[in-house]
Every structure is written in structure tokens, then in C-alpha cells.
């Protein structure tokens, strides 16, 4: 009766690590009239003029943001700066008072809940700060990874397990632990499992909310490096909220600095950190050791 070991007839080949395919030169769009416009590209996600007030507090005040394919964008700022709110609004979890969000031309705020959920389990991913919010703690690691596949129609048990083993390996978890529940895993492993569970459908855009927030410093470095490698291999676009400047420097191509619901500065990560213009950014950078 035990068919677990039976060889599956047509296993889906594990997804190929993009051989730099995500880094093909962007299309040439001449005559865009902006600094040569050689890199002009259609953004994946665009938000304009997002405004949201909680009573008298402005959580978001006329925020604009674009995220391009394969681009890692960090939102930094202290607690209460509005960065997590921005993440929730952009991913459609929360409605702003005003403004618009568009994903590949689709109006995110106007789309049906069904369409948004479909995005959230296929082309989007969300990595929570606390792995318990992103994992099913009573379901095995393999089941956690397989859920998005099954939600999108995968009906071959053997293939789902092959995929689960592949993704466990990619996030550096021994695939022989596939049938253990995440409660038995360390915090860092749980967070890596959450990432595997999110990436299994090869999303285009991943939202990350303080992914290293609750972890020991030694574990943080490993996780950040893993995220860095996966993002580069898969050509993911990532919007990462963090108050960890070092994490932003390691991962992000571009960053936005938020304070009191306002984006006070944005640009290339190394330029914002090495040549900060806004008083608040200068304060933020000067408070970081090393």
C-alpha cells in the first residue's frame, strides 16, 4: 500500500536556476527623452500618490513608487514611519484613502478579491516577519511548500514531493526533513521554509516584511545571503521592508527612506547610503556602525 517510494512516471523537472536569463539587456527604447532612456523599462508595479491616514496620523502621504522586473527595492525607516503600511497597501492587503496601484497594467485596488488572491498565490509572494504568520505550523515542510502548487492545480503527489525536495535543498534544509512539521525547526529554518513555500510558484514579485527581524544576528547573515543568491538566480523583483541598513545595502538595488508616511529620499542604494541628502537619511546612516 505504501506508494511513497514508487517512482513517479513523469516528474516535473525542477525549475532551472535562471542562467542569468533574468539579466538580459533591457529593451532599447530610443527617444524617451530622459537621460538617454536606454534603460527605460515597463515597471512591474507602479503606485501613485498613495495617501492613508489613521485619524490625525498620516501613515502614507502622497507616496509614489515603481518596481521593475528583477529589481530589489528596500524601504527603510524607523518603526511607525509607514513602511509596513506601504507594503500592505501595495500588496492589496489594505486600502489607501487615495491613490492608485497598478501591477502590469492591472488596477490592484480595483481588482476583485478572487483576482488578488490568484496573484498572491502565483505571481506574487509575501514573506512575513514572523514565520508563524506565513507557515502552517501543523503541516509538514513538504505540505507547506506544496500548498501553492496544489492551490494552482498540481494533482500529482510524486511531482509535488520532487518540487518540495528541490526547494528545501535550495533553501539549505535537508530534504530528508520534508515530513517534519515546522515547529521542530529553528527560527532561521522556519524563515527559510517560508521563503521556499513562497518561491515554489516562481513569483515575479515578492513582498518581504522584515524577513530577518526576529532572528539572531548570526542567523540573519546566512538568511540575507540566501535571499541575495535566490533573488539574483531567479531574477525576482523584491520589495523589502527593513530597518536594517546593512541588509538593505547587501540586498537592494534601490532604496526609499520613509519618515512620518513620506518618502524623504530615494535612489540607488549605494548613493543614498554614501551620499545621503535629507537630514533624516544622514541621521539614519550616521547611526549605523561600520
Amino acid at each position, binding site marked *: *500500500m*505504501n*506508494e*511513497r517510494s*514508487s517512482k*513517479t*512516471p513523469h516528474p516535473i523537472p525542477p525549475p532551472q536556476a535562471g542562467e542569468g536569463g533574468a539579466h538580459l539587456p533591457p529593451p532599447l527604447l530610443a527617444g524617451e527623452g530622459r537621460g538617454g532612456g536606454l534603460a527605460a523599462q515597463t515597471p512591474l508595479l507602479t503606485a501613485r500618490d498613495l495617501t492613508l491616514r489613521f485619524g490625525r496620523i498620516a501613515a502614507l502621504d502622497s507616496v509614489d513608487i515603481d518596481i521593475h522586473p528583477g529589481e530589489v527595492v528596500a524601504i527603510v525607516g524607523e518603526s511607525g514611519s509607514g513602511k509596513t503600511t506601504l507594503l500592505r497597501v501595495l500588496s492589496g492587503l489594505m486600502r489607501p484613502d487615495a491613490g492608485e496601484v497598478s501591477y502590469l497594467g492591472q488596477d490592484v485596488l480595483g481588482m476583485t*478579491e*478572487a483576482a488578488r*488572491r490568484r496573484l498572491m*498565490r502565483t505571481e506574487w509572494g509575501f514573506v512575513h516577519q514572523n514565520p508563524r504568520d506565513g507557515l*502552517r505550523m501543523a*503541516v*509538514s515542510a*513538504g*505540505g507547506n511548500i*506544496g*500548498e*501553492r*502548487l*496544489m*492551490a*494552482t492545480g498540481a*494533482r*500529482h*503527489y*510524486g511531482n*509535488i*514531493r520532487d518540487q518540495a525536495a528541490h526547494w528545501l535543498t535550495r533553501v539549505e534544509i535537508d530534504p530528508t526533513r*520534508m*515530513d517534519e512539521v515546522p515547529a521542530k525547526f529553528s527560527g532561521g529554518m522556519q524563515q527559510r521554509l517560508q521563503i521556499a513555500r513562497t518561491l515554489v510558484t516562481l513569483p515575479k514579485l515578492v513582498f518581504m516584511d522584515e524577513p530577518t527581524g526576529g532572528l539572531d544576528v548570526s542567523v540573519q547573515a546566512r538568511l540575507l545571503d540566501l535571499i541575495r543568491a535566490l533573488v539574483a538566480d531567479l531574477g525576482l523583483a523584491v520589495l523589502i521592508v527593513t530597518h536594517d541598513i546593512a541588509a538593505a545595502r547587501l540586498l537592494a538595488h534601490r532604496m526609499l527612506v520613509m519618515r512620518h508616511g513620506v518618502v524623504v529620499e530615494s535612489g540607488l542604494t549605494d548613493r543614498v547610503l554614501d551620499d545621503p541628502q535629507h537630514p533624516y537619511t544622514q541621521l539614519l546612516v550616521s547611526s549605523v556602525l561600520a
Partner: protein
Amino acid sequence: MSGYNFAYLDESTKRMIRRAILKAVAIPGHQVPFGSREMPLPYGWGTGGIQVTAAVLGPADVLKVIDQGSDDTTNAVSIRAFFRRTAGVATTESTEAATIIQTRHRIPERPLREDQILVYQVPIPEPLGRLEPRIAETRRMHAMADYGLMHVKLYEDIARHGHIATSYSYPVMVNSRYLMSPSPIPAFDNPKMDQMPALQLFGAGREKRIYAVPPYTSVKSLDFDDHPFRPIRAPHACELCGSRDTYLDEVLTDDVGGRIFVCSDTDFCSERQAVKEAAE
């Protein structure tokens, strides 16, 4: 019996329940809330099924009640007595003679007809409940047909046991749209629900939900391509009637390990025994 309205419930309550039933029939597999009443027996004894039966019962109906396939267990006997006394309807143990069959945990072996109604007693109507504790979220999952999670449960079964170990309350998709719990019938009975000529009504008293499968509706058990659904029964023949294709109960016959397997459907079994005896 004087002092009670026909079939115990007052007419406006029955109308309310019938409206819920009509809605349930219109949306096969969808759980419709209803104002479940206090009944003169505790939750878990079939209060949902009794209210549904009371709402569809007419004076000319012939009622059969089974519990685990058997007509003569306490629950079945007392519910039959209840309707005999409050509605004065005829009752029967014969599947063929009945127009309404209220059941706990079985579907009769004899195929049902278009002029029959099968009423299930349901303890837990929400198939996703054990996996997703937030009720609002399970409602959204139904609304969006977002049912990946149910396959996660079956996946976990195979991962742990090597096969799908769910042997009762085995989840089904109704009309390719709604995920539904068939109530705790054995998975063996699931195929009988598919394209059944009789109307199937489900009542959950404590959870205050009614749902339905109209006649000739597709009911498919969830499974995997490489682990297809298999109705499971004990690999024996019935000790009494010799049947090899019915659902069997294991019965201990003494206190030294003696056991026999007999049909769980007592009516079906006695019919077969009668035919066998007549042939001899």
C-alpha cells in the same frame, strides 16, 4: 399527539428552514445558515437532520431512520418514534418503501430513486475547519474556490501513511464548484453521492448550517493523479448474507477474540438473507 404542531416545529420555522433548503439546492454544496431551533434532544443526536426532516415531511410520507446503517439503534429508534408521535407518519425499515430517509453515517446500499429524499445528520459541516480555524477565512476560501488547502490535508495523509488514510468525512467537490463534507459517512459511500437520483439534504443543528446536493449532480472525491480515490471496505464477505460488495461492520462475538463481519446496512442484509433462504 396533541399540543404540538405537525412534525413538532411551528409552521413559520418550517418555512424558514424550507427557504434555506431551497437556497441550498440552488447552490449545490454551499452551506446556508439557518435559525437552528432547540430540539428535545441534545446536539450531536441529529438535531440538524431532524429539523430538515420536519421541514420536508408531509402526512403521506414514509420515514426510515438509520444510524450507522442500522434501523434498530437507539438514535434511529427514538427519531422514528419522535416523528410517529409528532407527525403521525408511517415509518419503515425498508429502504425501498421509504420516501424520506434520515441517516447518520451511512448511505443505504440499495440505490435510491428520484421520489426519495436522503437527509444527513451533520456534526461538522465545514470541511476546511480543521485546517483553517478562522471561519471568516474559510468562507472566503469557499467564495474564491481557493481549495489548495484541502489537498494539503490529503498530501499530509499520504506523506504520513503512504496512502490517503481519510476513511470517513472524505471531502468532495460538488458540481465542480463547492468543497463539501459528506458528513461522517465512510469514504466507501462517497461514489453513491455522484449523480444520485434522490435529493440529498444535509442539516447541522449545532453549527446552524444546511446544504444540499440536488438529484443528478456531480460529486467527486478529491484525490491525486498518482493516488486516486479508492473506496475502502473490509476485505471479507458478510457472515449473514455473503455479500462481498457492501460496507461491513466488525462484530465481536465473544471475549476470546472471536469476530465476524456483517453488513452495516441491516435492511439490505436481511433482504438478501430472505432471498437466499427462498432460493434454498
